[in-house]
Structures are given as structure tokens and as C-alpha cells.
């Protein structure tokens, strides 16, 4: 994708990512950071260095906005908002190129789909949808 990721980011998000001191408290507090391709701290470092690879990392899709990192961050950066914004940029790009969205509902296990609270399902869709 031929986009300036930082510019796009600041168009839709006010989080002061440049004040990050890379202390890693976000990665440490994240309950699922060991599943991420790059940790939240690294993701922010990639972002401020204008590396558009951040959009290709699973990190932005795995963040479930539990805010554990936001509550610890010394510079009051809310990583969940950073992930929200990056997801949004990704989805917008795909929509522009008329590509299908990532989420394939058929792949979700049926027994989970039936039992699960519908709020969960709405939340999931909202994370994957471009408005």
C-alpha cells in the first residue's frame, strides 16, 4: 500500500505516540502479547518511524481493548486507540481497493457461534468492519 502511515494515523487519532519512552510496560501488561508478531511497544516504535509494516502485523487485530496497558502507561498513551486507528487504516485501504474484508464468518466454529453472547459477535464485527 502506498500510504504515509503516520499521516493517516494522526488524521484519525490523537494519541501522543511520540512521547513513548519504549519502557515496555504495555507489552508486559498485555495478557496476550506472547501471541503477537510484534509487541505493542515495538509496534509504536515502528509507527513513529513511519514503517507501514505495522498494518501487516497481527498485533492490531489481537488487541481486545482490555486497557491493561493504558492503566499502566507512564505517558498516558492508550494503545487500544492506536490499534483501533491502525485497523481502521488497513480496512479503509482494502475497501478502497475493493478487496474483501478479512473476517470469514464461515470459519467460526458453529458451536461457539450458537452459544456465545451476541454482544461478543457484534464486538467482533465492529472490529473488522470499515465504516
Amino acid at each position, binding site marked *: 500500500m502506498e500510504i504515509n502511515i503516520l499521516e493517516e494515523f494522526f*488524521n*484519525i*487519532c*490523537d494519541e501522543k505516540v511520540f512521547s513513548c519512552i519504549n519502557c515496555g510496560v504495555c507489552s508486559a501488561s498485555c*495478557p*496476550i502479547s506472547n*501471541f503477537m508478531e510484534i509487541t505493542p511497544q515495538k509496534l509504536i516504535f515502528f509507527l513513529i518511524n513511519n514503517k507501514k509494516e505495522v498494518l501487516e502485523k497481527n498485533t492490531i*487485530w*489481537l488487541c*481486545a*481493548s*482490555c*486497557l*491493561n496497558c*493504558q*492503566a499502566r502507561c507512564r505517558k498516558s498513551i*492508550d494503545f487500544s*486507540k492506536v490499534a*483501533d*486507528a491502525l485497523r*481502521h487504516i488497513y480496512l479503509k485501504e482494502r475497501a478502497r481497493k475493493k478487496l474483501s474484508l478479512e*473476517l470469514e464468518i464461515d470459519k*467460526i*466454529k458453529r458451536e*461457539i*457461534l450458537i*452459544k*456465545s*453472547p*451476541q*454482544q*461478543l*459477535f*457484534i*464486538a*467482533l464485527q*465492529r*472490529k473488522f468492519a470499515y*465504516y
Partner: protein
Amino acid sequence: MKYLYYPGCTLKTTAKVFEDSIKEVSKILDISLVELNNWYCCQAIYTSLNDNPSLLLGAIRNLIETQKEDDKLVTACSACYNVLLRSQNTYFKDEKLRVRINAYLEEELKREIKIIHFFELLEEKIDVLNSLIKKRDYPPLAFYYGCLLTRPKGIALFSNDINPQRFENFFSQLGFLTIDFAFKTRCCGSYLTYTNEEIVKDCVDKIILSIKERVNNSCVILTTCPLCQFNLENYQKDYEVFYFTQFLLSLIKGE
């Protein structure tokens, strides 16, 4: 006391047991919950992007419905509580966004609505509850708070987001043993259950492990959130998991 009540979608469907227990408990305690007119989805998660005011519309519309009748709104679902509170907070704090949100609305949100968690109503009635409870010989209680009620700081129901004590205090005042475990506010994995089941399993495993650390034999896990309830029930079989109102009701009924 009469309160406007916002059930949210999940309590009407997959978490019906939760709503039923809320309704019964409130009836017993003489709390009248009147369902909000024309309520609809709170939008399930809070998202705020500068270029998209529509992300907060659902929550704000519900609050506008509320202001027609009252300035308080009771909810029991953790997600609704979190989304309503944070959306309202953003609405009043971010003036630019507010103007843009208002462009979508027939009516403005004029004043802050006090959003009350059902648990706060129970806290006020603790003496009545104490006299109603028949059965107390229960294994210790592990209260799983999850993330939605504990964060973000400043808006959340609890001042301490790592080791909150409010539910523990409540239940120990009712004469129950409670367990302090390390991961009581750690995320359960939420909707990743659809896309990355192994992550949710890992999250639940760690939560359960931290409970096992502190428990000798059995214990009961209590939750406030349909999302946590689902993940904890689905991915572990060691302990029973109940909604806290469901548990209270069984105590009152002596079951």
C-alpha cells in the same frame, strides 16, 4: 425506588439467566426497574476515531432516550456500562466531536446521565440482603472482575484496577469467604474466541491457575459480565461459574 433500566442485547438473549436473576433479586429487594423506552444496542465496544463521530452514536442515542425521563440509568452488563460511560465522557469532553455527533441527532444530550451499575444498588441494600440469605455454607468465592468494569482509571467502578476489593467486601459482609487471586482483572480474551481460540484458552488457563494458587479444594467463580461468563464456562471445567446475581438468588432461595 424506581430506576430506568438498560438491559442491552445480550441480557435479552444468551444471558437470559442473568437478567432473570436481576429481575427477581430486585423484586425481592423492592427495587423497581423500568425498561428504557426504545433502547437499542450500545454498540458493544467503545471506539473513538477523530474522523468518525458515528462510532459513538448508539450509546449517545440511548442516553438521549434516558434524559427524556430521568437523569439516572441502571445497567448490569459490564460492556454496556463501559461503553455508555466512556461514550458519554468523550461526548462531553471532546467539543469538536460533540458538534459532529450532534449533526446526526434530532436532539442533543443536554446533561450528564448518571450511569449506575446494578451492583451499586445492591450495596445500598446489604442489610436487607443479609437478613434474607438462608444458606451460607459455601466454598470460598473467587470474584472475577474482568476488564470492562475496572478500566479506564477514573471512569471505572473501582479505584484500584489490579486488586479491587469492592465485591469481596460485599460478600464478606454477607458472611462468605473470598479469595484474593492475582489475575482477577486480567482480560479473558473477549471476542478472540471466534478468531483465535487458543488465545482465549491461554487467558482462561492463566486466570484459573492464579485461582488454584489460592484455593485448597473447590471454589465458586462469580462474574458480572456475559462475555467473561461465556469464556470462563466454555474453556475450563474445574470450577463452577455464576453471575453474581444468579448466585445471590440461589442463596436467598436457599437452593
